[in-house]
């Protein structure tokens, strides 16, 4: 556990000082539709960005922990962005209120840093639920095996490490991410948690 905490701290320090990012906020006027599935939930999420600094959205989900269906009204805010010639770093605050009541909600932080070749990101989310509250965390590190031009298929190989306070177990597994135009597909397979799937379409 000591080594794990040490490595996690190193990666988080690396991520938060030199790099961060992902795109839970689109360009001004942009909309995003997402499908997400992992061991905790299966959801469809639509968000609209009135500004590049924040997005508002609705997420319909099947909660695999509580075994019920409900929706979240979500708000995501870009706290910090750093652009350089070869990189972009982002830090976001995210929150949501459940359709089941204001006392059921979540808050979290999400960060990423990427170049055309490297990607690293982290997420931290605390969910206030009906039966038992929980926290989940993840880290992602990735590399693009080739640098495609605009309009090409872009490929990323990533390693994702995640945990939640319900199981208190860290799971690491490979993830494949593909981009083409306005579409993104991310698939990960963990022998303990089965598939992670994330599909995104921006318009």
């Amino acid at each position, binding site marked *: 556990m000591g*080594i*794990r905490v040490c*490595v996690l701290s190193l*990666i988080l320090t*690396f991520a938060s000082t030199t790099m961060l990012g992902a*795109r839970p906020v*689109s*360009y*001004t*006027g*942009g909309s995003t539709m997402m499908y997400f599935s992992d061991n905790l939930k299966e959801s469809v999420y639509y968000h609209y960005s009135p*500004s*590049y600094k924040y997005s508002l959205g609705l997420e319909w989900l099947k909660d695999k922990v509580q075994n019920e269906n409900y929706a979240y009204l979500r708000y995501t805010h870009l706290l910090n*962005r750093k*652009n*350089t*010639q*070869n*990189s*972009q770093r982002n830090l976001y605050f995210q929150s949501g209120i459940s359709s089941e009541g204001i006392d059921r909600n979540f808050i979290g932080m999400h960060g990423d840093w*990427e*170049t*055309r*070749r*490297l990607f*690293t990101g982290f997420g931290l989310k605390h969910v206030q639920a009906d039966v038992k509250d929980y926290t989940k965390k993840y880290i992602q*590190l*990735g*590399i693009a095996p080739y*640098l*495609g*031009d*605009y*309009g*090409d298929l*872009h490929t990323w190989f990533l*390693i994702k*490490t995640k945990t939640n306070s319900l199981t208190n177990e860290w799971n*690491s597994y490979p993830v494949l991410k593909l*981009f083409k*135009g*306005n579409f*993104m597909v991310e698939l990960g397979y963990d022998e303990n948690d089965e598939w992670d799937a994330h599909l995104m379409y*921006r318009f």
Partner: protein
Amino acid sequence: MKKIIISLLLLPSLALAGELEHDMHHNHDKHENHLHEMVDGQEFQLDKEKFNKFVSGLSNAQIAVLSLQGMVCDFCARGIEKTFKKDVGYLNIDVDLSLGKVLIAYDMSVFIDKSDVEKKILSNGQNLVDMQILSIP
């Protein structure tokens, strides 16, 4: 767990090595494939092949050559294309991710306002560093 830790630590190193290798090739390519055109005393660093393809068929046009920061992925640049396509006098657009450049062709009659371009780029999440105008007779 040890394998995972080693993989996590090795990944950035491998990537950085790849990045360095890419930069070496990139620097070499700069001299062979990039156009350094002088117009009114200004130098334009562009990919020659991409540029020639972009201007083919264009006449009586002007091209805004934008240099950006933060345009690191195809996904990030999609909004730029969507935004500028709505402009009056818009003719064509191309994105060069490797050089961080965006080329936008407009009808010659249009005035290209740098502050307006800057706002549009910022609303997409990037920063405009420089804008130069090329004329295509």
